[in-house]
């Protein structure tokens, strides 16, 4: 029991505890809960294709980060050992989109016929924090599918070639 050993000179968190307990809670949107549940169940029971789709964005980010680090390391090694001027085959590769948009977890569904914008963003690899002690200097490029309401619907990470271009341009 924490209160038994509490020093009387130590701060009393009772007012904060009371304020937190008195906080109004967000309303429970039961319809939204049921919708999420059904969507998740559908994804779970949709076969191998659905299983692959239910992989989260984290795995995409992890895969992209790992490939960028790995390819970047190889390119660096090649440049150090061979020192050739004609080395840029990978860096010159076009930053083509290699993956379809992955739906974001909490965003509304993509509706056919609606207008969307594609916004390209660059995210520091270090901010992904998916790798232990990740301190990579590079950036990862991604395209966000943004609806008219300003909310992102999906994300598409660009391929290793784009990552290298991004990294080299820093």
């Amino acid at each position, binding site marked *: *029991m924490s*209160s038994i050993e509490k020093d009387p000179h*130590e701060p009393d968190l009772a007012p904060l505890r009371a*304020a937190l307990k008195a906080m109004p*809670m967000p309303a*429970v949107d039961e319809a939204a809960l049921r919708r999420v*549940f059904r969507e998740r169940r559908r994804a779970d029971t949709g076969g191998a294709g659905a299983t692959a789709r239910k992989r989260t964005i984290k795995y995409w980010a992890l895969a992209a980060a790992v490939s960028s680090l790995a390819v970047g390391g190889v390119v660096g090694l090649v440049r150090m050992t061979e020192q050739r001027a004609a080395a840029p085959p990978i860096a010159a590769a076009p930053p083509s989109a290699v993956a379809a948009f992955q739906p974001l977890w909490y965003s509304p569904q993509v509706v056919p016929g609606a207008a969307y914008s594609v916004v390209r963003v660059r995210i520091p690899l270090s901010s992904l924090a998916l790798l232990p002690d990740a301190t990579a200097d590079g950036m990862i490029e991604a395209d966000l599918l943004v609806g008219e309401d300003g909310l992102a619907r999906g994300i598409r990470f660009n391929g290793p070639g784009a990552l290298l271009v991004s990294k080299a341009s820093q």
Partner: protein
Amino acid sequence: MTDADPQPEDHQDATLLVAIAAGDEQAFVDLYARRQADVFRFAFAMGRSKSLAQDVTQEVFLNVLENAARFDTAKGSARGWLFGCARHVILDRLRLERRWTDALPELVVEHDGDAKLLTEQRVGRLHAALTRLPVEYREVLVFCDIEEWTYAATAAVLDCPIGTVRSRLHRGRALLATLLVEGEAGARAAPTPVESGVLQTREVCS
């Protein structure tokens, strides 16, 4: 002081988790209605941001949907499992967003008198100081002093010995007192060792 495993309550939670794993939609709605406020309050206490708390709450229950089948009554209480999940989500978010502190006193609302204003200011200062603590101290204070869990229940969620909970609680309270004194003295010009220590947070319980 409440236990993380109050038998009747936890039995209901455990039953709901099992039902969710079996595909029971109503069980998911029921568990959300029962525990949403607890998870939200925990996340808000840790991060001092309502938007962060809402995001964390959503993510926790999405995790419940995906991982309810992994819950095992032999390994611990349902509430401990749920809060263990919430803890991981909030720590991930804090790391990703670098949201170690939040200068906005979101608890301060309208006031109609000096006494109420003083109370709100005191609560705001307390919460601000709490969120400046290193996460390993902060979470122990939130579990033991805010949520009023037992040492044993807290140790189970943090997956560490009870002695570790006790020592962190002691140090956390001492640091909190120091921060409060510093805050009152207005000594906030330079980052304190505590603030820089926050960024070194890592799991030390294993």
